[in-house]
């Protein structure tokens, strides 16, 4: 078809300028898609910092605070839950499982979490992912500790290393140490890109054992000191935990159970739905994302403006070409089509290149983003949102072509001769 050949040859004739235009559009598209993808990955990663949990229960505080200190290792709990209350809720028929958390101690700036086997079995993040051991075994014995990957990397711990836990401190180095009762690294967790990496997991018994001879928050004196060797699981009584995650047998029970826990008479408790609270928190933090999106739209706009100016500048050179085509019987409609085809074609090339750049870029950088930023590219690479963005860009590209097309079709043959020799 002559028309297509004409259009393509014309583009090829102006290869340098047109490929620059296509590339500038491609880069804009790449940026827009990258921002969108990163945003989605960050959002998914964030709101699914803990997943498959229906309720998160702690002593009464703000919902955000509860989420922050249990899921993100930030801030600290104001109060604890009694073991009895925990047991009472846990044994309700509608509860499938629970993961208890006992917080309050740290090790060289990393948080120490007392929990039990349910953590290794039921804890999930980003949908289906679970904490897995790179080596060793879960911390189930009294003096066992399973450490997160960042802890292992930064402190250089190996299996069997002894660690001393600081009392009551989760950031920085504590003043009081549980140096009479050192723990032993029993396992190292695989990297997850979540706060799990920055934590040290011990058993609930371990937390209890550390503090067994402490009284009113003070270290024991000589008379009261209980040596580590004499502590046995069997004769130990746990009397409180900080919080726990809860999964119901049937999702429909969640709201009712939440109400029930929130109005628990014996103790002031708070139950939140983690997904909901995380979503709210994310929306509060998402201003940056909005700004990024606006910037990438501006980049797209600049790309298209560059295309418009290339087309208009090219049109000046092409006036003679247009006059020749007019003199040979090509009507304004054909001239318009030629111009619009050009801009649509360039936009399409730009879009395709942009998508390719984007997919390749993320494919290549995926590991680096995971390792350096904990940014996991979860979710599909392409969603309807991206498709809509690309469609808008394409339509806009066509409209950009209409402007020089209108000018060109208005020009008479005389314009072809405007440059007198």
């Amino acid at each position: 078809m002559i028309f297509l050949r004409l259009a393509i040859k014309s583009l090829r004739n102006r290869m340098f300028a047109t490929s620059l235009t296509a590339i500038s559009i491609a880069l804009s598209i790449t940026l827009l898609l990258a921002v969108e993808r990163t945003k989605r990955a960050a959002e998914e990663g964030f709101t699914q910092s803990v997943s498959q949990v229906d309720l998160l229960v702690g002593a009464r505080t703000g919902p955000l605070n509860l989420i922050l200190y249990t899921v993100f290792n930030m801030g600290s709990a104001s109060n604890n839950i009694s073991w009895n209350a925990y047991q009472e809720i846990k044994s309700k028929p509608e509860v499938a499982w629970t993961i208890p958390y006992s917080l309050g101690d740290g090790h060289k700036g990393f948080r120490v979490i007392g929990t039990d086997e349910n953590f290794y079995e039921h804890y999930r993040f980003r949908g289906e992912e679970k904490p897995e051991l790179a080596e060793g075994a879960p911390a189930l014995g009294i003096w066992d500790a399973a450490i997160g990957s960042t802890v292992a990397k930064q402190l250089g711990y190996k299996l069997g290393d002894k660690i001393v836990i600081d009392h009551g401190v989760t950031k920085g180095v504590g003043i009081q140490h549980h140096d009479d009762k050192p723990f032993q690294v029993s396992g190292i967790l695989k990297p997850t890109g979540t706060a799990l990496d920055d934590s040290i997991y011990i058993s609930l018994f371990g937390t209890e054992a550390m503090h067994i001879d402490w009284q009113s928050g003070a270290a024991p004196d000589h008379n009261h000191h209980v040596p580590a060797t004499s502590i046995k699981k069997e004769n130990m009584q746990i009397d409180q935990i900080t919080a726990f995650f809860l999964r119901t047998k049937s999702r429909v029970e969640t709201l009712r159970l939440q109400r029930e826990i929130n109005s628990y008479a014996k103790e002031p408790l708070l139950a939140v739905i983690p997904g909901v609270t995380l979503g709210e928190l994310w929306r509060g933090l998402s201003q940056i994302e909005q700004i990024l999106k606006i910037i990438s739209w501006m980049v797209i706009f600049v790309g298209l403006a560059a295309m418009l100016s290339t087309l208009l500048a090219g049109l000046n050179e092409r006036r003679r070409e247009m006059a020749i085509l007019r003199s040979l019987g090509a009507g304004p409609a054909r001239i318009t089509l030629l111009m619009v085809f050009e801009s649509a074609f360039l936009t399409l090339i730009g879009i395709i290149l942009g998508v390719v750049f984007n997919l390749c870029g993320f494919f290549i950088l995926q590991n680096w983003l995971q390792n350096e930023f904990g940014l996991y590219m979860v979710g599909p690479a392409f969603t309807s949102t991206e498709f809509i963005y690309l469609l808008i860009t394409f339509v806009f590209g066509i409209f950009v072509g209409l402007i020089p097309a209108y000018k060109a079709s208005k020009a008479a043959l005389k314009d072809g001769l405007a440059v007198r020799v």
Partner: protein
Amino acid sequence: MNIVELQQIQFIYSSSSNPVLDIDSLILKKGEKVFLYGPSGCGKTTLLEILSGVLVPQSGKVSILQKDLAQSTAADRDQFRGAHIGYIFQSLNLIPYLNVQENITLPLYLSKQRRSKVAASNEASELQNICTRLGISNLLLKPVSELSVGQQQRVAVARAMLGKPKLILADEPTSALDHDLREKFIRLLFEVCSEQQTTVLFVSHDRTLSPLFDRSISLPAINKVVTR
């Protein structure tokens, strides 16, 4: 038979209030080679654009090959021009990114009617004939940028003539050529046109060319609009 017949035409560009052309009558007969001269800016190109149906006068009759262009739609006029009229500009007639052959055969692809006059099997031989006639048959596959100005103008003639249009409109096609080449070019154009009984309207400001033509018309003499 009158190939061109203008009656009482008046033309005003929409952007100005002064008419550019006001002509009572202009008639070209079949096979005539007419020279139309006048100084720059007297409306020569505008007249050619009216004759080719790019512009339409506000009043009057524009009959080309017995078809009234003033009464036709824009699309009709474009089609008509593509099918029946060969147009030669003063220079830069060729599309720079097409080679010589592609430039010459371009009208066949833009107009079905023009195409139908050249049977597909004959396209190559017809192209060869006309190019041999014009002395450019060895240039067919060259990019047009490698041609001299004289060669370019001959390619433009070949394009205008292919498909045997009835009317050739030439807008100062020799102004980019030096003096010796001008006469040679016009004689060559006439030879080719005579073979096909084509009517030629040749526009120029250079009156020295007028003896070569059947008839000469001064545009200022027939245009009632007083020009600067």
